[in-house]
């Protein structure tokens, strides 16, 4: 029922193509659509307002890239801003040396606290080698404590059972003692669901906090929440101080705009998302995925990838022109390397290329590491050059090379080697652009020039496109 934002934008901006700049009127039209899209995705209206203002500022006066339609460009601005807002500080659980580390799970009724307590305990035990103890201090809801016990048994993690004790503070005291006694290094406290306006129960959380000094207080929020997400999150944060958020029930089709609302009012990072009722259905939080989801539809995802690809392709064409004219500078060389690295690790990259290309050559892990190291080094060396040096390598005399080595923490030898590779590559690139792929492969004798060859080769058109397409498939999974 929701029309994709990208479609709407295409309609309102369709006559803009090739007009140069995004004007105020275009932006206004686009912002109306964006506002509705965000509201339909359940982003709180106040948050939408400030978001739209920020995007407007960024989009206004931007040059419309030749190969991008204006709507694509606006989507990109919106997307990038969303990602920035959603992302941020550590999305890992923070541990200290204290024993035990205490993690408190809080939130509204039915948001998924108990289930997520189990998921998190399992995750911490399995991937962080923690030894968790879980305790439920929900002495109110029927069978709340049994629920955690059953979950504990299912995931083979310990749950403190003291059915005769009905005081949450007394329960956490016992739990802390148990941790010391048995040697659990992490205590997860599953609290009762409560309304943020329930003074008495909010005080109870404060007491539990005072007693246990938790290093994490995690707000468990239902991703289907609407406008009210700001109220509850803000209140919980003000009253007890949250350190992170987990968004549950993301396995449905909610757009999940609450994520943005909650992030905005608490400033706390979203650490995980819950994607099912099973106890391993906990995933790290990726701001870009959620941004795409809030904007609606995978087609935005593919659109953005297309945008990215077009930008890159345009650059690639530019490179090719430069090569032909022998203007391929060190600066361009660095850009090319960076582009290649953006695609992922080299061995993965090789997997994406036709297998015959390198005669079945496969990189070992060490070779791959070596290449990565080399990439970084090359980058550092070029960074230490002045812009004049970068645009004309011929002026790099001995004293300049010495200075560059010092600046990049390398040796003069390494600088020399790098410059040799660069000049080799320029030659090869010229061969390639005039003589095609085959001749380039001929030049690919040793590993040293492989880096340059790959970088240049990918930039030169040819299999650059293929690499992009494959990458798209990979990301979608």
């Amino acid at each position: 029922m929701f029309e994709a934002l990208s479609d709407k934008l295409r309609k309102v901006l369709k006559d803009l193509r090739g007009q140069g700049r995004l004007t105020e009127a275009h932006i206004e039209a686009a912002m109306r659509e964006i506002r509705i899209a965000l509201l339909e995705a359940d982003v709180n209206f106040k948050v939408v307002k400030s978001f739209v203002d920020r995007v407007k500022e960024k989009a206004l006066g931007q040059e419309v890239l030749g190969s991008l339609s204006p709507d694509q460009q606006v989507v990109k601005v919106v997307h990038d801003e969303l990602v920035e807002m959603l992302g941020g500080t550590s999305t890992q659980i923070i541990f200290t040396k204290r024993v035990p580390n205490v993690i408190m799970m809080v939130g509204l009724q039915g948001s998924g606290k108990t289930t997520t307590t189990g998921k998190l305990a399992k995750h911490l035990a399995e991937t962080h080698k923690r030894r968790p103890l879980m305790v439920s201090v929900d002495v109110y809801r029927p069978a709340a404590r049994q629920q955690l016990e059953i979950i504990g048994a299912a995931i083979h993690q310990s749950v403190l059972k003291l059915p005769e004790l009905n005081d949450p503070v007394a329960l956490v005291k016992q739990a802390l003692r148990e941790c010391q006694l048995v040697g659990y290094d992490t205590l997860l406290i599953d609290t009762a669901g409560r309304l943020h306006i329930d003074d008495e129960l909010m005080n109870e959380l404060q007491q539990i906090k005072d007693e246990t000094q938790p290093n994490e207080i995690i707000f468990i929020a239902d991703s289907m929440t609407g406008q009210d997400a700001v109220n509850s999150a803000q209140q919980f944060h003000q009253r007890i101080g949250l350190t992170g958020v987990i968004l549950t029930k993301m396995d449905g089709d909610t757009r999940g705009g609450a994520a943005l609302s909650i992030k905005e009012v608490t400033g706390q990072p979203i650490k995980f998302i819950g994607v099912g009722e099973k106890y391993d259905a906990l995933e790290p939080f990726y701001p870009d995925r959620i941004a795409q989801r809030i904007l609606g539809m995978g087609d935005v995802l593919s659109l953005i990838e297309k945008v990215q690809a077009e930008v890159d392709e345009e650059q690639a064409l530019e490179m090719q022109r430069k090569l032909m004219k022998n203007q391929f500078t060190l600066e361009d060389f660095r850009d090319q390397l960076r582009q290649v690295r953006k695609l992922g690790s080299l061995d993965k990259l090789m997997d994406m290329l036709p297998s015959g290309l390198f005669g079945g050559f496969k990189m070992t892990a060490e070779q791959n590491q070596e290449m990565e190291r080399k990439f970084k080094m090359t980058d550092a060396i070029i960074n230490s050059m002045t812009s004049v040096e970068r645009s004309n390598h011929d002026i790099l005399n001995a004293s300049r090379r010495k200075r560059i080595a010092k600046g990049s923490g390398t040796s003069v030898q390494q600088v020399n080697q790098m410059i040799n590779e660069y000049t080799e590559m320029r030659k090869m690139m010229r061969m390639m652009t005039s003589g095609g792929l085959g001749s380039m492969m001929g030049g690919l004798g040793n590993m040293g020039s492989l880096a340059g060859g790959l970088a240049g080769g990918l930039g030169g058109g040819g299999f650059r496109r293929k690499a992009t397409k494959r990458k798209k498939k990979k990301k979608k999974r």
Partner: protein
Amino acid sequence: MPLFWKRKKQDDIITLGLHREATEAEKKIAERRDEGPEGDFLEKFQDAVAATRETIADKLDAVFAGKREIDADVLDKLEEALIGADIGVQTSLDIIEKARKQVQRQQLNDIDELKRLIKDELRAILDNADRHRQSGTVASETEVALDIKPYVLMIVGVNGVGKTTTIGKLAHRIKSEGNQVMICAADTFRAAANDQLAIWAERSGVPLIQQKPGTDPSAVLFDAISAAKARSADVLIVDTAGRLHTKLNLMQELEKMRRIAGREIQQAPHEVLLIIDAVTGQNGLEQAKQFSKAMPVTGLVLTKLDGTAKGGIVIAIAKELGIPIRYVGVGEQMNDLIEFSSEAYINGLFR
């Protein structure tokens, strides 16, 4: 004052199970009935909404202060207020558009008229949906012949919205009006779902039919229906596991339960209540659509209205799908369930 639970027989409403001498307890209930059990709705609901600090009316008064006529600012504020209450975006925009047109034609000049217009619009949506029920297009307890027993009432919804708790409350109220009630524990999936329901069954003094975790829910339902028939229970309330409406296999599971019920008892399930959590955003509409595909959803229960969320998505559901709102949950205790009234609800939003 109407009863909470009613079934139609000719024209007069009688309570199930009361076609015999009333017991002392039932007489007491009958007395209470005259006071009207829903009299406290307005109060309770408005208390709940009062906790939300700002009502739509407050917001409007604030922007209108010092103005002589309704301008774009006022309408923008109103739009925000409606959207802020989770009334569907499209529904809100439609209502605002109507108001804008009237302002343009100078048919709408002051803030009280504007409030009245919006209230009437919202009210009309809710009442229209309820008319479906009253006319029998959507089933309810007043539409099912008394000789069909048990009356099967299924409770469905996404995870954690308050299904099990609502069943505890419903069982208590229906029973307290003199009906013989049974509960079927067809959530065989979630940890301790049975234990939770068992405690509610005990609180309300209603027998519970349950089986081992992991049993096919349809098998539990079949058992429960047989047991209810054997004991000639008036009402069988069926708890189901929380499920997201996007999970095809789980929705098929519901369809299977529907088939089993229909095979065992004429017209069953007679009533299917979809539980909507008041905090739910726009996704609520999709929930209602998808559940309606698997089951004939006959009504909504809006839970957790004692929080600050206003649950406006039910208005969008009523508008788009014509499903009436039947009950409202305002707390976690047995008595925290009230029959819905559009008037009290809208007044609460606007007070």
